[in-house]
């Protein structure tokens, strides 16, 4: 028998974060919630007298798999916001219905069967697991080793991009830049020639106009720039001298 309180804590710890899979907008939030679910499952394993598996669960899932997910999320861009509006007609309701029906069926079936409950607890400590793994299931373990190696090689193949042409030298980079008519020199730094010595303020050209592209693009996306509004206002209204302020 397992602790009832423990069960409900685990249930809450798994089901509630799992729901974020359906409702959270940002993938990072989802990933963090799933980490919680994994921790909850680890707790469940320990409760079900499988302490070694619980540890493995934490190490493999929260430590490796979910971190891998986060890496990939960073690679493809955290910005990949998802519009939750459904695009395929009927997919949402049929999908929800199907998933709910699946869950309902499973629950009702489990409720209808009577399963034996052993008095003896299985020994889930590392020693027992090790004996089982490397004795009875040693062949399976070896096959799994192949699977893992294959997966590793597969991942390498999938993510590998062969270099089709030689790496550009600095000279070539510069030539290309001149050819397309870009600035041959570095862009002006933000905040230079400005009173505000700050990154979020555009530089001013000799005429006193703000140079928009001197500000970091990232700040523009985040709407964290000053946009040089005050300088433009000063240019448009000559009566307002700098000294007046």
């Amino acid at each position, binding site marked *: *028998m*397992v*602790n*009832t309180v423990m*069960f409900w804590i685990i*249930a809450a710890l798994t*089901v509630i974060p*799992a729901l974020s*899979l359906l409702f959270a907008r940002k*993938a990072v939030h989802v990933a963090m919630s*799933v980490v919680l*679910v*994994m921790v909850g*499952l680890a707790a*469940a*394993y320990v409760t*079900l007298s*499988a302490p070694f*598996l619980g540890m*493995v*669960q934490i190490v*493999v*899932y929260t430590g*490796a*798999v979910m971190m891998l*997910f986060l890496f*990939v*999320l960073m*690679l*493809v861009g955290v910005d990949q916001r*998802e*519009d939750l509006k*459904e695009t*395929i007609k009927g*997919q949402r309701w049929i*999908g*929800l219905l*199907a*998933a709910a029906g*699946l*869950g309902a069926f*499973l*629950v009702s079936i*489990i*409720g209808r069967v009577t*399963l*034996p409950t*052993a008095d*003896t607890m*299985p020994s889930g400590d590392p020693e027992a*697991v090790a004996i*089982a793994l490397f004795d009875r299931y040693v062949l*399976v373990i070896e096959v799994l080793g192949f*699977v893992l190696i*294959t*997966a590793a090689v*597969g*991942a390498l193949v*999938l*993510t590998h991009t062969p270099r089709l042409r030689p790496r550009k030298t600095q000279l070539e980079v510069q030539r290309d830049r001149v050819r397309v008519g870009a600035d041959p020199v570095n862009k002006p730094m933000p905040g230079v020639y400005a009173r505000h010595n700050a990154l979020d303020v555009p530089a001013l050209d000799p005429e006193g106009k703000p140079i928009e592209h001197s500000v970091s693009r990232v700040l523009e996306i985040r709407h964290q720039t000053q946009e040089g509004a005050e300088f433009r206002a000063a240019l448009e209204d000559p009566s307002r001298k700098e000294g007046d302020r």
Partner: protein
Amino acid sequence: MDPINFVILASILFAIGAAAVLLRRNAIIAFMGVELMLNAANLALVAFSRMHGEIDGQIMAFFVLTVAAAEVVVGLGIIIAVFRARQTISLDEPAELKG
């Protein structure tokens, strides 16, 4: 408390994972749904192991965990490759299978 409740919990988690696969367009989130489904199965296996008083269920969960790890590696590799090719990871985008 009867360990059968964990099986019911596993069923619910499984359904949530399936719903995530069906409803989310972000490939990574859908993939996490798949992971959740695998883990729900694991939970059921461990619960059965507990009920039978045998260790074999745990061993099966162990194997599933290993295979899931391999699957994650390959799956994320595919996602990266798709992203490189299309600059998006929306599941609705690759519709070449359209008949």
